[in-house]
């Protein structure tokens, strides 16, 4: 971006809560059921039915509030947000408006220069999700699936504290990690459990006053958030540099074309006619309940990162990578907990080999063919020098495509490291005999040749010789001039 402009970004993140039943009805919330099989009379907004608040959702909102060091309102109020749409059965959404359950939290995100930025969370409120309209394959009609209608959400609204698309993504990732740590959401973005709207404006660098913003709706991946914000920044900058004004409007991101398009202008914005829902009493939260929940909070990413560094002597970068996702950190700790496993090797392997393989096969950690126990079996054999790191990669690949344990594979394929001094001696002599010119070079002072010679011995042993032993024997021979 042109350094004359500063981007100002705020996010509204919608997090679907992992309650078993809906926010105001007893219907199930599981994803993927046949259309309208998980919608009861309340979700269908039949006449005369009434909402009853799900306490589990309130508890989850409080957990989130505590995790971001926010204020939990002793009294919060549900309000009706009115608009007509076929997937909104009551003609209003039950949300919170003037008195949200959580206010004034903070989330710290790392900056590329090594510092951190503290992003203020204005509020987080409870609300119900709408259903889904289906337009494909309906032969000229539109279908409505109300399974999602009434699913609990928290909407997390940030202050406009971010200054780049990357910061916005870092913030969103942090919130994502947090809700998964807390176990209050599955965070599944393909299924829409975690999605966001981005408010973007530009202002001349050094200017205090905010520029006119646009709101880009329904971004359901980190990549789309980044691309949409970058697109918006570039679009707005171009307009501003031409001396034009930004229209305050709601825009939609089209991932196929990688562009944002206007949806409705400020003038066309809905008047939601918010007012307190008379069917629901204000939510009164006793301090004792908050304290009970606080005591039961799981360890949060930042604390876990610190602990991992100390407990397992991990470098900060590894600890941060591992704790970015609760499942990953759990995987690591489970693996490192097996006897004979070196935690630092485990961290390297989980981040490197395992991470790479999951990426190549586009798998989630939860679906990894190699679990902590089998991985630990392999790492144990690296630690006790049964196999080298190089052979271990070969064993890992075999493990990935089958069910065998490391020991079985090593035995079946005869991959144990060769530590027999006599055999190594024999191989070294063979290599030295075949490379007399290199031996001369070494003796003339080119010490780099050693690595080449080690490599030759390893090759001759099919990679199974213990590399440390090989280089010791080689050195002894080279220095001994024999």
């Amino acid at each position, binding site marked *: 971006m042109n350094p004359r402009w500063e981007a100002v970004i705020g996010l509204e993140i919608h997090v679907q809560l992992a309650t078993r039943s809906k926010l105001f009805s007893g219907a199930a919330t599981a994803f993927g059921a046949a259309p309208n099989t998980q919608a009861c*009379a309340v979700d*269908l*907004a*039949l*006449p*005369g*039915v*009434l*909402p*009853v*608040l799900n306490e589990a959702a309130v508890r989850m909102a409080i957990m989130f509030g505590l995790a971001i060091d926010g204020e939990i309102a002793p009294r919060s109020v549900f309000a*009706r947000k*009115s608009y*007509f749409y*076929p997937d909104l*059965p*009551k*003609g*209003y959404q039950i949300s919170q408006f003037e008195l949200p359950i959580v206010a004034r939290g903070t989330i710290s995100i790392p900056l590329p220069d090594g510092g951190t930025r503290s992003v203020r969370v204005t509020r987080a409120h409870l609300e119900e999700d709408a259903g889904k309209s289906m337009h494909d394959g309906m032969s000229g009609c539109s279908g*409505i699936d109300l399974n999602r209608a009434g699913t609990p959400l928290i909407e997390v609204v940030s202050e406009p504290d971010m200054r780049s698309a990357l910061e916005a993504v870092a913030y969103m990732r942090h919130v994502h990690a947090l809700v998964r740590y807390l176990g209050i959401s599955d965070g599944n973005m393909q299924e829409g459990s975690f999605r966001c709207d981005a408010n973007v404006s530009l202002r001349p660098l050094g200017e205090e006053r905010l520029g006119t913003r646009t709101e880009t709706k329904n971004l359901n991946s980190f990549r789309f958030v980044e691309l949409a914000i970058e697109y918006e920044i570039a679009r707005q900058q171009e307009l501003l540099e031409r001396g034009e004004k930004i229209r305050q409007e709601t825009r939609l991101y089209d991932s196929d074309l990688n562009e944002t398009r206007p949806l409705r202008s400020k003038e066309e914005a809905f*008047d939601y*006619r*918010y*007012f307190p829902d*008379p*069917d*629901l*009493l204000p939510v009164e939260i006793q301090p004792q309940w908050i304290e009970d929940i606080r005591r039961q909070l799981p360890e949060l990413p930042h604390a876990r990162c610190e602990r991992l560094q100390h407990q397992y002597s991990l470098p900060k970068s590894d600890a941060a990578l591992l704790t970015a996702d609760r499942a990953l950190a759990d995987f690591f700790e489970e693996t490192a907990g097996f006897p004979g496993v070196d935690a630092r090797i485990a961290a390297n392997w989980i981040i490197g080999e395992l991470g790479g393989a999951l990426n190549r096969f586009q798998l989630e950690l939860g679906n990894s063919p190699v679990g902590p126990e089998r991985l630990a079996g392999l790492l144990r054999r690296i630690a006790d020098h049964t196999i080298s790191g190089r052979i271990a990669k070969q064993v890992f690949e075999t493990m990935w495509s089958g069910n065998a344990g490391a020991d079985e594979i090593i035995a079946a394929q005869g991959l144990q490291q060769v530590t027999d001094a006599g055999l190594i001696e024999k191989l070294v002599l063979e290599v030295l005999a075949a490379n007399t010119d290199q031996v001369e070079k070494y003796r003339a002072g080119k010490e780099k040749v050693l690595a080449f010679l080690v490599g030759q011995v390893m090759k001759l042993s099919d990679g199974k010789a213990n590399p440390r032993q090989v280089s010791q024997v080689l050195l002894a021979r080279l220095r001994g001039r024999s």
Partner: protein
Amino acid sequence: MLTDSIAELSRLLRRRALSSEELARRCLAEAERQQPALNCFITLTPESALRQARAADQVLARGEGTPLTGIPVAHKDIFCTAGVRTSCGSRMLDGFIAPYTATAVARLHTAGMVMIGKTNMDEFAMGSSTEHSWYGPCRNPWDMQRVPGGSSGGSACAVAAGIVPAATGTDTGGSIRQPAALCGITGLKPTYGLVSRYGMVAFASSLDQGGPLARSAEDVAHLLTAMSGFDPLDSTSVDQPARDYAVNLGTDIAGVRIGLPEQYFQQDLDPEIRGVIESALHELEQAGAILKPVSLPSSHLSIPAYYVVAPAEASSNLSRFDGVRYGYRCRDPRDLTDLYCRSRAEGFGEEVRRRIMIGTYVLSAGYYDAYYLRAQKVRRLIRDEFRSVLREVDLICGPTVPGTAFAIGERAHDPVSMYLCDIFTVSVNLAGLPALSIPAGFINGLPVGMQLIGNYFHEERLLQVAHAYQEMTGWHRRTPGGPA
């Protein structure tokens, strides 16, 4: 014509002098006979009524049951009844059959009552005359040219005409008390939260309250005992231990302090109405009640506040009727907007549309503070005034309605004069208090109602005083067509 009280009928049933099935047949026959003239029913349910009556007879034969077992009842067509149409008096719900039953109805059913049918009402309970019904106007049994009041006009009419001994109604601004007054029967609006609203089609959620209509305070007490109580399906329902409201009937009312708000007896009060209420008060005084002048200075603000709050909530509650999932849908909609606009324009009647417009307006950005918020402030003021007066007196008394039943069509095109029928009743809903209307006399052959307003959850006291009054006088025993 059935004029026996629930207590008398119950005695006959228990003595096996009458079977519940016979009683149900008589009610159904009476309903069939009078329906063409009165139009007080939207739906009659003879088959299920006889089935329920036979079941009640079996319970009675075992010597079991409650004081309501085998007693026929009619439900206002605003209460959802599984398997039976619930129209709410509207074309919008003409064919609607709910898959669930309202808690209040279910409780009366559990107590053994036999549902005869569903009664006519102003569409979505919006009105004071039962003229605004998709099924045509209901008539007052005391004078067929006059309205029975509303919106629970069908229920009041069916009881007054001797078709059923009891009926349910709902009261958002007077919709139980006003028709009870105009039809010469007893009607109670309970404390907000005492009777579950689950399954009752919502008009204005913070004001709506279901309640009983019957021929006497004693009958009303039996009905309330069965209808009321905590319901986990209604978040605004109050968790209180169950009570028998008939227990304290017949106890002495000497020393009961009755407040008479000066605002209810002003210069412009119809002198004949004043005369009826004053002589009723005199009777109560004779029985030992202490009359005290009190003041409710914000009374004149209750109609304006009510006609902001109620339409605001109604506009939101009625937005679910969009022609998408159930209810009336216009023919051949061009697009989504056309579907919404025409379904709602054709499905709702004029008065409902008017209130949706008012409600939408007062909730709109830029008007919310001036209307809705200010009305809420007035509401608090009214409630606080009631509370302070009710620290000095046990109940508050005055006319239920400023007049007697008016002619059909007389006010149909003058909404403001219609709204003014509610002048003595709406403040009670704004405050959430319980109030009862009992017959206190007649003017030109038309009944006059007296309203008793009590403190929160003091229904027992209201019923005790009303019962004492009914023991002393006989107004509640008069029937249309009987000796005047």
